């Protein structure tokens, strides 16, 4: 991505992400066998759980960064920037989770949506973090806004563990964990297991790549908000001192050089 936010790190992570995406598509759509009960629908397991996991990770980073901002010893504008950045990517991953999950649900359950505890809580998670992002766009001084946002992020994060444990706590249509089952082996084996593990690596790289770019944009936005206007005025004034065509305002028909 040839943008002002590209660095050596984003290029390497981006390259690694492209390679793993290619391998994941090959393993997921060609090599890995269809499931005994779900048939080819099982191939959605190579995207949906990983996307949902990084949705949780994003909101987790947002909460940790918010704690770091609120803690007087570690208070830094960088933590607030990281919290906002991570939450935005989390919202994108949350939308992707709901959309891919809905498509999978239509194929396996016969419905696009049902008011199952897991699905409902994931929709609630999206709603509360959209509210958090809206709050970050409100006016006021940067410090006050950052403090309000950090407290709100912690309140919003409460939904994450409840959403994750929903399949254990309530009787849900949504299946439970496939890989991390307490005291039990994973539900899938062989190429299916390998491909699913690779999906976590792939989406992890995509997540880091997006985070690095988005963080750079956040820093630029902050600079634009705090200094951009002042610096622009100074530059304009400096330009005014250099020899340039004289612009004379003439009443009626605009300017004449």
């Amino acid at each position: 991505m040839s943008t002002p936010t590209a660095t050596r790190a984003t290029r390497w992570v981006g390259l690694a992400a492209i390679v793993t995406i290619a391998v994941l598509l090959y393993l997921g759509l060609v090599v890995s066998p269809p499931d005994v009960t779900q048939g080819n629908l099982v191939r959605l397991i190579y995207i949906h759980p990983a996307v949902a996991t990084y949705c949780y990770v994003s909101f987790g980073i947002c909460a940790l960064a918010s704690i770091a901002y609120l803690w007087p010893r570690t208070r830094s504008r960088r933590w607030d920037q990281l919290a906002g950045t991570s939450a935005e990517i989390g919202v994108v991953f949350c939308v992707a989770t709901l959309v891919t999950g809905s498509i999978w649900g239509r194929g396996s359950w016969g419905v696009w949506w049902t008011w199952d505890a897991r699905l409902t809580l994931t929709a609630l998670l999206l709603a509360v973090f959209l509210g958090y992002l809206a709050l970050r766009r409100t006016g006021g001084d940067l410090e006050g806004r950052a403090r309000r946002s950090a407290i709100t992020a912690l309140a919003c994060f409460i939904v994450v563990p409840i959403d994750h444990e929903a399949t254990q706590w309530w009787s849900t249509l949504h299946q439970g964990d496939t890989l991390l089952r307490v005291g039990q082996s994973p539900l899938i084996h062989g190429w299916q297991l390998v491909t699913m593990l690779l999906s976590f690596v792939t989406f992890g790289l995509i997540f880091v790549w997006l985070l690095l770019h988005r963080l750079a944009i956040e820093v630029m936005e902050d600079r634009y908000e705090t200094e951009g206007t002042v610096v622009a005025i100074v530059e304009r004034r400096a330009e005014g001192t250099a020899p340039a065509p004289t612009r004379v305002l003439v009443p009626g028909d605009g300017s004449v050089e």
Partner: protein
Amino acid sequence: VNDYVAGGYGALAVILGLYVGHLRRRARMLAKALPSGDRRR
């Protein structure tokens, strides 16, 4: 590969693609708006 699988992979590609496009536009707009030499500090 059935239609649901194609739909799931396709939808994910569209969502991520739209977001990346949005980030690119935002970064370029800010780079133009910020004074030169002051874009990435």
